[in-house]
Each structure stands twice: as C-alpha cells, then as structure tokens.
C-alpha cells in the first residue's frame, strides 16, 4: 500500500469529502491560499475559492459561533483552530451552543460541524501551544472526540467526522503530523467512531494509550517481549464514544490495567476508564489500576523541564513492571 504522512492523509480525506459535498466549508486563520499552518488545506483554495476556504481574523469565538449557525442552516462547516489552545476562546460556543443545540431543540436540529486542532506536549511549544484538553470535551454531553494516531486512522476518522451529523472534535497530536504509514486509497476508507484498535496483543497487562502515547507504549512492548512480558496496547481512537468493550475484554484476559495519557490526570480519561473498569470488572483485577499522566503543571518551555513533564518510555516501563509485581 502507498504511504502518506499523517498530515497528507487528513488532507486527502478533506479533499475527497469537499469534492463530494459542496456544502462543506473550512474556516480558520491561514487556511486559504496559505494552505494552513500545518498544511491542512494545501491546494484546496485554488480548487474551491474563498467561500469554501475562508480565511478569518483572529476571533475563534466569532467564527466558531458563526459555524454553529451555518451547521444549523444547511452547510457542513469545518473549523481549523491550528492549535486547539486557540479554540479555548470559543468554549462557550462549543459547550453551550454546539454541544447542546440538538438536545435543546428536542432533536429538531442537527449539528454537523468538525472542530479540528493540534494538541500535544513537546517541541518547546510552551504552554499556549501545547494543551491536550480533550477530557474537557469528553466530560460534556453532545460531542464526539477523535484522537487519531496513524495516517490511515487520521484519514478514516476525519471522513467519519465530516460525514457525521453530530459535532466532532478532531484532535491531532503535533508530534504525529509527519509520521508516515500506509493509507488506503479511495473515498470509502472510513474508520467508525467507538472502535478501538489493538496495537499489540499480550496477556500480562492491558495498556490503554492515548494519542502520542500509543507509539511509546508499543516501543515499551517491543522492549518487554524479549524479557517475557507481553502487554496489550489498546488505542481507543475515539474517547467519545469510548470502546469500553475492547478494554474490558482485554482486562478480563490480563487482570491488570495501565492507562497512559499525556494530558492531566485529575478528572481525565485515565480516571474515567479506571472507574468504569472497576465498576464492571473488579472481580477480575489482580492489581490496582495504574495511571501514567503528564505532569499537572502549565507546560514549561525549557527542554529539561519539558522532558520532566511528559511521560517517557522508562516511566511507562516502570509502571508496567510495578503492576506485574503487585
């Protein structure tokens, strides 16, 4: 199969969907002729012009709220925040309007909108270009949240997001944008929401890993296999909806669960997954559930501080070993 970068894969998805559906339009800063800060729209402005590739000023709340109104009236907007940190200015529009309007209207309105942006720690981006934030959106009813980790999933999940009549946060970890992988060709490569992927199979520990942590956990798996330890790395791919069935099936097999999430621990995905596994599979647990999270601190800039804030491979490996020793 031909290989693409993650960013090329999302561009292919967007390009294919815009060719199919003339009601799709994109808004954001520099997504017109510039093609997007992260090359999210390269070449599309030349094909579709200003109305469908709308450069904006720096007013995230404004264009997010505008797109909510557009989604209620027959078009399918995609908001490109560049960095999701910038989208926080639009939280009122996202949580109070976009997430609630289908329910508030008693199901009379749909809200087909995609909110995409880069997340993730690292790269000396410092605290205003580094947040993960996704648990905020998972906490709130009415939103889907996709966290693709491979180029193939990036394409297939973005197509699902664009075709959905529900609002979707499509969040891309910056460290993944240039990663390369096989991507199926054609318009009908769709990855459904709520279906996790097993990145490794194993019997000793279930490891649920999110976004950039997936590859780190696969690396840990590679180092542990020769030492006789097999871990099952689960990539949920979407955290709302969350594929609890795959997680529970694995926990029934291993009896041990580690959640590795670069974002903050308190009230995060690890806490949620641990609670639900405890509620539904407590009798099969052989050890207390463990979490590895990024440090609960505004993201620092300097390299040694940054490295200390991000979960590293040795930390993950230690956590696996600690689980096995219980």
């Amino acid at each position, binding site marked *: 199969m031909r290989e693409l970068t993650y960013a090329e894969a999302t561009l292919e998805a967007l390009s294919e969907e815009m060719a199919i559906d003339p*009601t799709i*339009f994109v808004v954001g800063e520099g997504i017109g002729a510039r093609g997007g800060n992260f090359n999210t729209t390269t070449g599309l402005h030349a094909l579709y012009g200003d*109305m*469908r590739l*709308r450069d*904006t*000023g720096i*007013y995230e*709340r*404004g*264009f*997010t*709220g*505008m*797109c*909510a*109104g*557009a*989604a*209620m*009236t*027959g*078009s399918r*907007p995609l908001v490109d925040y560049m960095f999701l940190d910038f989208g926080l200015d639009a939280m*009122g*529009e996202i949580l*109070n*309007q976009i997430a609630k*309007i*289908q*329910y*508030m*209207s*008693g*199901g*009379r*309105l*749909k*809200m*087909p909108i995609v909110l995409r942006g880069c997340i993730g720690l690292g790269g000396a981006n410092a605290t205003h270009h580094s947040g993960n934030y996704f648990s905020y959106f998972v906490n709130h*009813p*009415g939103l889907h949240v996709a966290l693709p980790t491979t180029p193939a999933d990036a394409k297939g999940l973005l197509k699902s997001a664009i075709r*959905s*009549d*529900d609002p979707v946060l499509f969040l891309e970890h910056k460290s993944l944008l240039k990663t390369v992988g096989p991507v199926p060709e054609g318009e009908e490569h769709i990855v459904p929401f709520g279906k996790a992927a097993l990145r490794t199979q194993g019997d000793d520990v279930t490891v649920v890993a999110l976004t950039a942590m997936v590859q780190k956990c696969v690396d840990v798996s590679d180092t542990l296999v020769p030492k006789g330890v097999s871990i099952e790395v689960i990539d949920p791919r979407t955290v709302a909806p969350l594929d609890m069935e795959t997680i529970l099936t694995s926990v029934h097999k291993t009896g041990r669960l580690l959640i590795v999430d670069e974002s903050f621990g308190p009230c995060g995905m690890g806490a949620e997954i641990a609670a639900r596994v405890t509620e539904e599979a407590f009798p099969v647990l052989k050890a207390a559930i463990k979490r590895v999270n990024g440090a609960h601190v505004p993201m620092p800039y300097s390299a040694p501080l940054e490295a200390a804030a991000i979960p590293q491979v040795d930390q993950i490996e230690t956590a696996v070993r600690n689980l096995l020793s219980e």
Partner: protein
Amino acid sequence: MSKAKPPSKQTLLALYQGMLRIRRTEEQLALSFQAGLIPGACHTYVGEEAIATGVCAHLRDDDAVFSTHRGHGHAIAKGVPVREVIAELFGRATGCSRGRGGSMHLFKPEVGMMGTSGIVGPCILQAAGAGYSFKLLKSDRVGVAFFGDGAVSNGAFHEGLTMAARWQLPCLFVCENNQFATEIPFDVATGNPEVANRGVAYNIAAVAVDGNDVLAVHAAAADAVSRARAGEGPTLLECKTYRTRAHAEGMRATGYRTQEAIDSWKAKDPITRLAQHLAELGDSATTPGELDGELDGELNGIEEEVRNQVREALEFAESSPWPDPATLMDHVFSEEVAGA
C-alpha cells in the same frame, strides 16, 4: 427614508394582530407564572412587540431567526404556534422543544425559529452563520438576530458584525435597545449608549428607529431584508424601546428605574399607537364615520380571535402530557431515537 411603499390596511391589521397575539400570550404567561404553572424563568416581551412583528412580517419560513432570552415574541412572530410556546414553558412533551428547552430554548426550524437562548450574544454569530450558509448555497434566504442592548458590548457583537460586513452576508442584526441589561442601564455599561452609530466601525449599513412604532420598524426592516436578499449585505437595525414589566416575572420592575419612566413608555404602547394610526387613516378617508365603525369591529374581532387562540393554547398546554422520563437521553446526538 425607506424605499418601501406604505403598508396596506390589510397589512396594518395583520401587524396589529401579530402584536396583540404576543401581548395576550405574554399576559397569560405572566398569570400562569404567578399561578406556579411555569417552573422556570419567564422574560416577557410586553412593550416591545412592534419589533419582532415588524421585522418578521418580511420573513419567510425558510429565513432563520436566532433570538435571545426575551424570545417569546420572536418565536410567535416567526410562526411558532402559541400552543407550542405555552406547552414548552409548562414543560410538556408537546412543547416546541419537547420539554427540553423552556422559555429560553424555543426551537422550531420548520418555520425558521432557530432558537431562543439563555446566553447573551451567540445569536449574533449564529445569524452570521446562517447568512454564510445561505450565501454558500446561493439562496436568497436571510439570517436574522434579535438581541438587546446588553449584547452590544459583548465580543459576539464585534465579531459577528466584523464577519457579516467583511463577507457581505445576508443578515439583519436587530438590536432591541430597551435600555437595561437586567437592571444595569445601557449608559452604565458603555460610554456610547447609541447602537446604530457603531455601524460605522464595521462599515455596515445601520439605522435607528422608534422601536415602539411598528410602521417605522416595518419600513426599516423591509429595506434591510430586501437588500440582504439582493446580495447587498447586512444591516444593523437599532430599535429604541422599553420593557414595561420586570426583567423576569417575579422580579422587581422599579428600584433601578422610576414608575414615571415606565408610565411614560406605556403611553407609547405600540399596539395602542397602531390602533390610533388606523383610526387616523379612517378619519382622512371620505366617509370617516363608516370606516370608524368598520375599524372598531375589525379590531374587536381581532381581539376576540387572539383571546380565543390564547385560551385554546392554554387548554392545550394544561392538558398535554409530560415528557416520558424514559426519553431523557433522546436527542443528545442526531441518530434515530427509539420510538421516534
């Protein structure tokens, strides 16, 4: 000056009926609130009926209205049946939002009512978005936002007008300047207590009218809507008005304003003024006596029809079923719901 022709008597009577329908509904809602039948908030539109009525007279079902917390009048003027409004405020399954919304979340997209809102400001952005959709879809539909003076200092006003002006969106931004945001006077909130003169800052057509004069609102909205439909861009329409009841039922009406001020605005009641205007039209006709008699009969007939409609709506709401708790989770997402 408006380019629109003076409205026909038939149009004037329709405007009269439209305003009266809102007034009588609001009066009933206030009584129902006092009787404990409305469990949530109830912000009435009494005194401001000319604005929704004068603007919505120019709108079709496929034009989109986005409203505010004081939105009963907008919903009714846009064509949401009174019975569905009252039933929604009563929390019944037959309400326009199936009991999920209440007063501040009235939706009926079938007639272009895209929601009242408990948050001040987003309606401006959403109307811009509707305008964006209609321009993208090459339709002559129009997006309309109603909002109060309280929204004008909110960032949504700035951002919404920036977008609509720059992209020449088919939008109408109707500011109902009733001079108070809850109990805070507009000139306490801002150094510029005029709204229409802000239009210059955005390079947007802007006009201020007497919001208690339905003919002035009707004429200004005619121009704005026809310009929007013709692709000539958005308009900011400031309607100077006053709410003669409290911010919300159960709250005080004075203390932050005088009874004299309220009374002076009651003397400018838009419904009474239109009746007077109709009578003056009759006086100027060749057989005034005959027309006067005819007019009284017509206005009385409208009064009776509206009262019957509100009474029937109240009975409908009172006898409507409550939502089934088993449907609690329905409509969070778009997929088909069980039994729907």
